[in-house]
């Protein structure tokens, strides 16, 4: 019989993020499929009671927590110590956690400490005949595998957006605190702050309904034989401002900056999607001026509804991968889109 631990951390405001609730739903479903082993919740943060209360109605057998000022900020040494202590206290054989940046950077190390194993970027969990198997992608989302492991504990990091979020009653949870004292050698690193663009300039919005993908075509010569980069920049920026869409970009467009060519000024490598970028999950995606075959198209593999604007009817980025392909000039279409959205 497996012992399942859901491992979550608090956000800056003390609450649990949506990705934590998605992992809770996955943990509950797995426990159900395995015939109902007890689910333990482990929480890490500066203060954890509010987070525990947020999911008090989830039916967990036990709430464990590690809290204190040392655990307020994401730091490998302190997070690893906290997670290790919780896994040991819960005697977990399967540990489920959301693949947040905080957990992703630490739980493989924790698995190593526990002589267990880890699976990251898990997009599906299954229980068959009392055995757990998971689905994850290999070679940058180009092939999908279903696998199981004999080693325990088995840590499973669930990709945000891949599972439905748990919904249930709040309440008052009884949390058993696990004491973790950090040695000085674990305090050599201090988190000093965050660097983020101002709210208006922030173009990466993981919770947006729409991903707007820009390709290198925006910076190429247009029908008049000239490039129109400032105009492209204005159109894209206005669209993002009006729709609050998230901005993704092809690698080639981001790389142009390093090659000394005119670029879209607010694009960085953080916007890059695909082979060496992210593979975000949004309900809808609109790609413009993107070209390329399968390897380039993985960037929007997890976008549900997809539309594309391109001058090439046979482009592998769109044909067979988009629901609708508009053969048109993106400059003209997007300028009109902005007009219409602005008038709403």
């Amino acid at each position, binding site marked *: 019989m497996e012992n399942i631990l859901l491992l979550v951390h608090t956000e800056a405001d003390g609450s649990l993020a949506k990705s934590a609730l998605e992992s809770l739903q996955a943990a509950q479903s797995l426990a159900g499929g395995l015939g109902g082993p007890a689910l333990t919740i482990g929480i890490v943060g500066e203060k954890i009671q509010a987070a525990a209360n947020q999911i008090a109605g989830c039916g967990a057998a036990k709430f464990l927590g590690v809290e204190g000022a040392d655990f307020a900020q994401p*730091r490998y*040494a302190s997070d*690893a110590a906290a997670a290790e202590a919780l896994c040991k206290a819960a005697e977990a054989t399967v540990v489920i956690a959301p693949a*947040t*940046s*905080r957990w992703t*950077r630490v739980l*493989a*190390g924790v698995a*190593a400490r526990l002589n267990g*194993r*880890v*699976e*990251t970027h898990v997009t599906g969990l299954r229980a068959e005949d009392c055995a757990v198997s998971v689905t994850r992608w*290999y*070679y*940058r989302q*180009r*092939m*999908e*595998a*279903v*696998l199981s*492991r*004999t*080693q325990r504990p088995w840590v499973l990091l669930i990709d945000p957006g891949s599972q439905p979020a748990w919904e249930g009653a709040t309440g008052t949870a009884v949390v058993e605190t696990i004491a973790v004292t950090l040695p000085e*050698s674990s305090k*050599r*690193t*201090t988190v*000093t*702050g*965050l*660097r*983020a663009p101002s709210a208006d300039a*922030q*173009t*990466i*919005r993981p919770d947006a309904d*729409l991903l707007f993908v820009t390709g290198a075509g925006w910076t190429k010569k247009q029908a008049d034989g000239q490039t129109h980069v400032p105009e492209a920049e204005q159109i894209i920026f206005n669209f993002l401002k009006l729709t609050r869409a998230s901005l993704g970009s092809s690698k080639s467009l981001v790389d142009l900056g390093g*090659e000394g060519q005119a670029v879209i000024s607010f694009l960085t490598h*953080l916007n890059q999607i695909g082979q*060496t970028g992210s593979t975000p999950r949004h309900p809808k995606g*609109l790609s413009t001026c993107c070209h390329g075959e399968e*390897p380039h198209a993985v960037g929007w593999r997890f976008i549900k*509804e997809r539309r594309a604007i391109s001058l090439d*009817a046979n482009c592998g980025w769109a044909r*067979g*991968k*988009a*629901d*609708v*392909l*508009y*053969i*048109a000039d993106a400059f003209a279409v997007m300028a009109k*889109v902005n*007009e*219409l*959205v602005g008038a709403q």
Partner: protein
Amino acid sequence: MSTAYQIVVCGSIVPDPLQTLEPVSGPADPALKNEAMLPSVLDPWAGHALFEAANLAKNNPGSKVYLVSLAPKAKLQQVMMTLAQKVPFELVALDGSASGFTDAFETAGALADAILGIPGLDKSKLLVFGGWESASRCAGVTMQVIGEKLGIVDQFQGVDELKVNADGSLEILERIDGGKHQISTCSGAPALLGWATGNLPEPKNNPQVGMANMRVVMPALQKAKPAPVGAGGIAFASVALPKQLRETRIVKDAAPEEIAREIVEWISK
């Protein structure tokens, strides 16, 4: 204050991203169709780590860069022909599978042992670099496990910038959720950094660097120890390409206004 670092970059090879990849059942674990024939490149994020390491070494006199790589040595030799012309490094080669289907823990164990075997290794000067994820296994596991095996608890992943402060402390920018960076200060080496893209372009080929590197690359390849890594403990039920092919509706010869209206209606739904 300038510190002479020992910078160990862990990086393997992956199939050229533009190649068509297809999984097949291997004798034990899954493999790629014609895997031995596929052209390879240095893993992209490991490449960024190597270029950042070389830049750090250049700015900190007395520093040395090692590239520890686990791959089939014939393929590794091919990749070295180009890579060795980019930046100065000393290769430590291990001969084994670079398949994405091997277990990251086995790979990490072999790499950690190789790092510990570097003559004159001084942990007080040690910075371990690598890509935060590979383009093959894509797990982000290997570097963390190497850090654990080396006893390094100052670890950073998704690193885009490293600055050495005047007092020798390290200021590090890591990618976090929502398009932001977390800024951390670490009092100094030893530390482990899994790099994302960093800030440096790929260096141009330099034949002089290539000549100097190849003098040690070839002997390193010749004495590469076998590293029999596999996927022990993993049972693959299936590995398959996504079959989803969409019926694309192609809209031709429509006016921009008409297309714009349709798009706005779709966005607003």
